[in-house]
Protein backbone atom coordinates (compact mmCIF):
# COMPACT_ATOMS: atom_id res chain seq x y z
CA UNK A 1 0.00 0.00 0.00
CA UNK A 2 1.26 3.45 -0.90
CA UNK A 3 2.31 5.55 2.06
CA UNK A 4 0.44 8.76 2.86
CA UNK A 5 2.41 11.81 1.74
CA UNK A 6 1.54 14.15 4.62
CA UNK A 7 -1.05 16.91 4.68
CA UNK A 8 -0.83 17.92 1.02
CA UNK A 9 0.23 14.46 -0.11
CA UNK A 10 -3.13 13.12 1.09
CA UNK A 11 -4.88 15.72 -1.02
CA UNK A 12 -2.85 14.73 -4.10
CA UNK A 13 -3.62 11.04 -3.57
CA UNK A 14 -7.35 11.60 -2.96
CA UNK A 15 -8.15 14.35 -5.41
CA UNK A 16 -11.95 14.08 -5.39
CA UNK A 17 -14.72 16.61 -4.59
CA UNK A 18 -15.39 15.18 -1.12
CA UNK A 19 -11.76 15.39 -0.07
CA UNK A 20 -11.43 18.90 -1.52
CA UNK A 21 -14.54 19.81 0.49
CA UNK A 22 -12.86 18.45 3.63
CA UNK A 23 -9.86 20.74 3.06
CA UNK A 24 -12.05 23.71 2.14
CA UNK A 25 -14.05 23.12 5.35
CA UNK A 26 -10.84 23.28 7.40
CA UNK A 27 -9.43 26.32 5.62
CA UNK A 28 -12.69 28.28 5.93
CA UNK A 29 -12.97 27.07 9.54
CA UNK A 30 -9.56 28.47 10.48
CA UNK A 31 -10.32 31.75 8.64
CA UNK A 32 -13.67 32.10 10.44
CA UNK A 33 -12.16 31.26 13.85
CA UNK A 34 -9.60 34.04 13.32
CA UNK A 35 -12.41 36.37 12.22
CA UNK A 36 -14.51 35.67 15.35
CA UNK A 37 -11.65 36.86 17.58
CA UNK A 38 -11.01 39.93 15.38
CA UNK A 39 -14.77 40.66 15.44
CA UNK A 40 -14.98 40.50 19.24
CA UNK A 41 -11.81 42.61 19.56
CA UNK A 42 -13.05 45.29 17.17
CA UNK A 43 -16.37 45.60 19.02
CA UNK A 44 -14.57 46.37 22.31
CA UNK A 45 -13.99 49.99 21.21
CA UNK A 46 -17.28 51.03 22.73
CA UNK A 47 -15.85 50.21 26.18
CA UNK A 48 -13.48 53.19 25.85
CA UNK A 49 -16.36 54.84 27.72
CA UNK A 50 -15.12 53.28 30.94
CA UNK A 51 -11.92 55.33 30.87
CA UNK A 52 -13.48 58.79 30.52
CA UNK A 53 -16.91 58.14 32.03
CA UNK A 54 -18.49 59.75 29.00
CA UNK A 55 -20.50 57.27 26.88
CA UNK A 56 -20.06 59.42 23.76
CA UNK A 57 -16.29 58.87 23.72
CA UNK A 58 -16.65 55.12 23.31
CA UNK A 59 -19.35 55.51 20.70
CA UNK A 60 -17.16 57.88 18.67
CA UNK A 61 -14.28 55.39 18.86
CA UNK A 62 -16.66 52.62 17.77
CA UNK A 63 -17.98 54.67 14.84
CA UNK A 64 -14.40 55.44 13.77
CA UNK A 65 -13.55 51.72 13.84
CA UNK A 66 -16.66 50.81 11.83
CA UNK A 67 -15.80 53.61 9.37
CA UNK A 68 -12.43 51.93 8.73
CA UNK A 69 -14.30 48.84 7.46
CA UNK A 70 -16.34 51.00 5.11
CA UNK A 71 -13.70 50.88 2.36
CA UNK A 72 -13.25 48.84 -0.82
CA UNK A 73 -10.78 46.47 0.87
CA UNK A 74 -13.12 46.14 3.86
CA UNK A 75 -16.05 45.21 1.62
CA UNK A 76 -13.97 42.74 -0.43
CA UNK A 77 -13.01 41.01 2.85
CA UNK A 78 -16.70 41.04 3.86
CA UNK A 79 -17.60 39.45 0.53
CA UNK A 80 -15.02 36.67 0.94
CA UNK A 81 -16.23 36.24 4.53
CA UNK A 82 -19.80 35.80 3.30
CA UNK A 83 -18.73 33.09 0.84
CA UNK A 84 -16.65 31.34 3.53
CA UNK A 85 -19.59 31.43 5.97
CA UNK A 86 -22.05 30.13 3.37
CA UNK A 87 -19.77 27.24 2.35
CA UNK A 88 -18.81 26.35 5.94
CA UNK A 89 -22.40 26.59 7.15
CA UNK A 90 -24.11 24.53 4.43
CA UNK A 91 -21.31 21.97 4.20
CA UNK A 92 -21.38 21.69 8.01
CA UNK A 93 -25.14 21.13 7.98
CA UNK A 94 -24.60 18.46 5.32
CA UNK A 95 -22.17 16.68 7.68
CA UNK A 96 -24.67 16.94 10.55
CA UNK A 97 -27.40 15.43 8.34
CA UNK A 98 -25.09 12.60 7.25
CA UNK A 99 -24.07 11.87 10.86
CA UNK A 100 -27.56 11.96 12.34
CA UNK A 101 -29.81 10.68 9.55
CA UNK A 102 -27.52 8.14 7.85
CA UNK A 103 -28.11 9.50 4.35
CA UNK A 104 -27.45 7.41 1.27
CA UNK A 105 -24.48 8.07 -1.00
CA UNK A 106 -26.79 9.53 -3.64
CA UNK A 107 -28.48 11.86 -1.12
CA UNK A 108 -25.04 12.92 0.12
CA UNK A 109 -23.96 13.75 -3.45
CA UNK A 110 -27.13 15.76 -4.06
CA UNK A 111 -26.62 17.67 -0.81
CA UNK A 112 -23.00 18.43 -1.74
CA UNK A 113 -24.17 19.77 -5.09
CA UNK A 114 -26.74 21.90 -3.24
CA UNK A 115 -23.97 23.34 -1.03
CA UNK A 116 -21.92 24.33 -4.09
CA UNK A 117 -25.04 25.84 -5.73
CA UNK A 118 -25.73 27.90 -2.59
CA UNK A 119 -22.17 29.27 -2.68
CA UNK A 120 -22.56 30.08 -6.39
CA UNK A 121 -25.91 31.82 -5.78
CA UNK A 122 -24.38 33.94 -3.00
CA UNK A 123 -21.33 34.76 -5.13
CA UNK A 124 -23.59 35.96 -7.96
CA UNK A 125 -26.00 37.77 -5.62
CA UNK A 126 -23.13 39.79 -4.13
CA UNK A 127 -24.15 43.08 -5.80
CA UNK A 128 -27.33 43.02 -3.71
CA UNK A 129 -25.34 42.69 -0.48
CA UNK A 130 -22.38 44.86 -1.42
CA UNK A 131 -23.45 47.61 -3.80
CA UNK A 132 -20.33 49.55 -2.72
CA UNK A 133 -17.95 47.27 -4.63
CA UNK A 134 -20.09 45.81 -7.39
CA UNK A 135 -22.34 48.73 -8.28
CA UNK A 136 -26.04 48.93 -7.59
CA UNK A 137 -28.45 46.48 -9.24
CA UNK A 138 -31.06 48.08 -11.47
Amino acid at each position, binding site marked *: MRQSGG*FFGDLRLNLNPGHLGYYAM*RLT*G*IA*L*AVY*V*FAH*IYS*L*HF*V*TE*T*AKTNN*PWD*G*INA*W*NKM*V*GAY*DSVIGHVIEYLLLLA*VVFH*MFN*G*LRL*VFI*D*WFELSKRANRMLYLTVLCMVAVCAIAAPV*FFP*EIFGRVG
Partner: protein
Amino acid sequence: MRPAYREGLWPWLFQRVTAVILAVGLLLHFVAVHFMVKRPLSFDQIRERLATPTWAIIDGILLVCAVYHGLNGVLGIYQDFNPRPGMRRFVGALFGVVGLLTVASGIYVLAHHVQAAQYLALRK
Protein backbone atom coordinates in the same frame (compact mmCIF):
# COMPACT_ATOMS: atom_id res chain seq x y z
CA MET B 1 -9.30 1.76 26.09
CA ARG B 2 -11.16 4.71 27.54
CA PRO B 3 -14.94 4.83 27.02
CA ALA B 4 -16.23 7.03 24.19
CA TYR B 5 -17.87 9.54 26.50
CA ARG B 6 -14.42 10.34 27.95
CA GLU B 7 -12.55 10.25 24.66
CA GLY B 8 -14.30 12.80 22.53
CA LEU B 9 -18.02 12.17 22.41
CA TRP B 10 -18.97 15.43 24.11
CA PRO B 11 -16.74 17.73 22.00
CA TRP B 12 -18.09 15.98 18.89
CA LEU B 13 -21.71 16.37 20.03
CA PHE B 14 -21.31 20.00 21.16
CA GLN B 15 -19.59 20.83 17.86
CA ARG B 16 -22.73 19.60 16.05
CA VAL B 17 -25.18 21.27 18.45
CA THR B 18 -23.36 24.64 18.29
CA ALA B 19 -23.19 24.27 14.49
CA VAL B 20 -26.98 24.05 14.24
CA ILE B 21 -27.45 26.97 16.69
CA LEU B 22 -24.91 29.05 14.74
CA ALA B 23 -26.55 28.25 11.39
CA VAL B 24 -29.87 29.69 12.61
CA GLY B 25 -28.34 32.46 14.76
CA LEU B 26 -25.93 33.69 12.10
CA LEU B 27 -28.76 34.07 9.59
CA LEU B 28 -30.64 36.22 12.14
CA HIS B 29 -27.45 38.18 12.91
CA PHE B 30 -26.70 38.69 9.22
CA VAL B 31 -30.22 39.89 8.40
CA ALA B 32 -30.23 42.21 11.45
CA VAL B 33 -26.82 43.73 10.68
CA HIS B 34 -27.16 44.05 6.90
CA PHE B 35 -30.84 44.59 6.18
CA MET B 36 -32.29 46.25 9.29
CA VAL B 37 -29.81 49.16 9.22
CA LYS B 38 -28.99 51.94 6.78
CA ARG B 39 -25.49 52.59 5.47
CA PRO B 40 -23.15 54.00 6.64
CA LEU B 41 -23.27 51.87 9.78
CA SER B 42 -23.01 53.78 13.06
CA PHE B 43 -23.66 53.03 16.69
CA ASP B 44 -26.88 55.00 16.46
CA GLN B 45 -28.07 52.51 13.84
CA ILE B 46 -27.72 49.49 16.10
CA ARG B 47 -28.80 51.24 19.29
CA GLU B 48 -32.42 50.14 19.14
CA ARG B 49 -31.51 46.53 18.40
CA LEU B 50 -29.10 46.23 21.34
CA ALA B 51 -31.46 47.98 23.74
CA THR B 52 -33.83 45.01 23.23
CA PRO B 53 -33.05 42.20 25.72
CA THR B 54 -33.99 39.52 23.15
CA TRP B 55 -31.26 40.66 20.76
CA ALA B 56 -28.73 40.97 23.57
CA ILE B 57 -29.51 37.36 24.61
CA ILE B 58 -29.30 36.13 21.00
CA ASP B 59 -25.91 37.86 20.61
CA GLY B 60 -24.74 36.34 23.93
CA ILE B 61 -25.72 32.82 22.80
CA LEU B 62 -24.00 33.41 19.45
CA LEU B 63 -20.85 34.57 21.25
CA VAL B 64 -20.61 31.42 23.40
CA CYS B 65 -21.41 29.09 20.50
CA ALA B 66 -19.05 30.81 18.03
CA VAL B 67 -16.09 30.80 20.45
CA TYR B 68 -16.67 27.14 21.40
CA HIS B 69 -17.22 26.02 17.80
CA GLY B 70 -14.19 27.94 16.52
CA LEU B 71 -11.73 26.83 19.19
CA ASN B 72 -12.97 23.23 19.23
CA GLY B 73 -12.69 23.13 15.43
CA VAL B 74 -9.12 24.44 15.41
CA LEU B 75 -8.26 22.00 18.24
CA GLY B 76 -9.65 19.16 16.11
CA ILE B 77 -7.44 20.19 13.19
CA TYR B 78 -4.42 20.30 15.53
CA GLN B 79 -5.24 16.81 16.84
CA ASP B 80 -5.38 15.50 13.27
CA PHE B 81 -1.61 16.06 13.15
CA ASN B 82 -1.31 13.44 15.92
CA PRO B 83 0.54 15.44 18.60
CA ARG B 84 2.07 13.83 21.69
CA PRO B 85 -0.48 13.25 24.53
CA GLY B 86 1.22 15.86 26.76
CA MET B 87 1.04 18.52 24.06
CA ARG B 88 -2.54 17.52 23.25
CA ARG B 89 -3.58 18.11 26.85
CA PHE B 90 -1.59 21.36 27.09
CA VAL B 91 -3.05 22.83 23.89
CA GLY B 92 -6.55 21.67 24.92
CA ALA B 93 -6.21 23.42 28.29
CA LEU B 94 -4.74 26.53 26.62
CA PHE B 95 -7.68 26.72 24.21
CA GLY B 96 -10.06 26.27 27.14
CA VAL B 97 -8.54 29.22 29.00
CA VAL B 98 -8.47 31.38 25.85
CA GLY B 99 -12.12 30.48 25.20
CA LEU B 100 -13.25 31.36 28.72
CA LEU B 101 -11.36 34.68 28.64
CA THR B 102 -12.80 35.53 25.21
CA VAL B 103 -16.36 34.74 26.30
CA ALA B 104 -15.88 36.82 29.48
CA SER B 105 -14.49 39.81 27.53
CA GLY B 106 -17.23 39.36 24.89
CA ILE B 107 -19.97 39.47 27.56
CA TYR B 108 -18.31 42.56 29.06
CA VAL B 109 -18.31 44.27 25.65
CA LEU B 110 -21.90 43.19 24.95
CA ALA B 111 -23.06 44.47 28.34
CA HIS B 112 -21.35 47.75 27.58
CA HIS B 113 -23.06 48.01 24.19
CA VAL B 114 -26.42 47.40 25.84
CA GLN B 115 -25.65 49.94 28.59
CA ALA B 116 -24.60 52.61 26.05
CA ALA B 117 -27.66 51.85 23.91
CA GLN B 118 -29.98 52.27 26.89
CA TYR B 119 -28.17 55.48 27.91
CA LEU B 120 -28.72 56.94 24.46
CA ALA B 121 -32.35 55.77 24.39
CA LEU B 122 -32.94 57.56 27.70
CA ARG B 123 -31.32 60.78 26.45
CA LYS B 124 -33.50 60.82 23.35
